[in-house]
């Protein structure tokens, strides 16, 4: 097994913790906003908006840090995707739903050349380079609603941004549940390396 502190350097662990906490807050407050009703109890509506806006801006900064750090460091090399990955992902998927119950070995070895299994590689790439950008950009658009609405087509852009934002929010939430579950399958040590 490769050296964990090399594969998961301090900046990455710090980034990931911040990212996870922010996403958690954003999910909860986002739900309160979406399902706002006079009887919502978790957060009041105006609090939810304030928290969501602050966490949203922090998430944007955090995401930018990740993109820059990945571009500059070795960590970026684990986020290269190719068509081959899709086929390999199905192999990994088959392992998760049947292979592992038959005691088969993991189909792909994880080492310093291949930090993630193909399924991880694909979903992490999707999460960080597709869904999060979408959420961050649409969120940024919506946070500037006042400037936007001075334009004639502003409200239409806003509506589209909102729908995309909600859809992306759904995917990232689903990702988080699966991600957490699969990480937990590998036991406690797996969490230690990222915290």
């Amino acid at each position, binding site marked *: 097994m490769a050296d964990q502190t090399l594969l998961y350097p301090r900046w990455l662990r710090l980034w990931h913790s911040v990212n996870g906490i922010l996403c958690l807050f954003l999910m909860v407050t986002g739900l309160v*906003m*979406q*399902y*706002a009703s*006079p009887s*919502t109890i978790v957060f009041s509506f105006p609090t939810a908006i304030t928290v969501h806006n602050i966490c949203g801006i922090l998430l944007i900064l955090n995401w930018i840090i990740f993109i820059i750090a990945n571009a500059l460091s070795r960590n970026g090399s684990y986020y290269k995707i190719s068509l081959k990955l899709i086929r390999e992902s199905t192999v990994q998927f088959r392992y998760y739903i049947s292979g592992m119950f038959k005691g088969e070995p993991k189909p792909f070895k994880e080492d310093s050349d291949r930090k993630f299994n193909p399924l991880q590689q694909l979903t992490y790439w999707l999460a960080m380079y597709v869904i999060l950008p979408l959420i961050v950009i649409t969120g940024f658009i919506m946070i500037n609603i006042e400037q936007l609405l001075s334009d004639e*087509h502003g409200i239409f852009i806003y509506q589209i941004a*909102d729908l995309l934002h909600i859809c992306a929010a759904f995917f990232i939430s689903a990702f988080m549940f*699966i991600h957490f579950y699969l990480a937990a*399958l590998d036991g406690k040590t797996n969490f230690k390396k990222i915290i």
Partner: protein
Amino acid sequence: MKRNLLFLLGIVFLTQFSFSQKPRNHPLVAENGECLRCHGQTVYTAHSTDGRKQTKRPMSQACIIAIPGYQKAIHGSLKCIDCHAEGYKNTPHSPDLQFESVYTCTDCHEGTKKFKRFHLDSIVAGYDKSVHAKAMAKTFSCWKCHNPHTYVNAFSDQTDLKSAITVSNAACLDCHNNAVKYKLLTNKPADNLIKEHVWLKHPELHLKNIRCVDCHAKLASGTFTPHEILPAQDAIRKCTACHSQNSILANSLLKSDKKSDLLGFSNSKSLEYAFIMGANRNIWLNIISGSLFALLLVGLFIHLIFTLRYRKLHKNG
């Protein structure tokens, strides 16, 4: 572009208010030319009593009647002296005319068939209980909000909801944002409206996109425009009154026959000009995302059970 995309989205607006396509534009009433010679301009020519000397004088701002505005107004087909005393034909006007009693809306409109749809009774009853009528019984009147010379109806004279809101709010802002008009009625200093509403997070956005009366007036039967303005402390301040699926706006501004349209947006009428989070929820997206999430959790749970069972067997065997 915008229209096509909206069409693609298939957003169906069930507009219940009948927005007329063409704005009114009355031809100039000939008799009014005599008055507008002076009142239609910023400067008029005054004559000495014997008529021999003349000089140019500025017309005071409040007495200037913008001619295009008058022609577009509901009452633009009326002669000035339908409402004003005949005595105004003489210039300079007699000071006594300042005390002329003006007609009220009901003098001309009460009981007429054409006017039935406005539910005047409900409006007048609401107005009588309003803060304005109570605090300024002698000086306030329907005319203060319905400018006699420029009044247009928010819903039948506008082409879309957004401008209906603008027109509607102009009635209030024209005074609450106008120190001169405000001072004519009270000695209280005028409020800074934006400051009074900062708690709304986006005060300007809200003041532009909801009618003042939606928060400040008590809902009345029969009319979309409730007239009973309540004291400020009784105004709506709970965000979720509007930002929720059964938004109060559904009973007034966004009133429509259906709760949601084909594509499943609740309170969809507002999509024409706004997106009200919480109120413009998409029922289909809610159902689909909710079910998928439930499915996902069930899937993970089953996987967990299999895993635990496998691990137990493995350990024992």
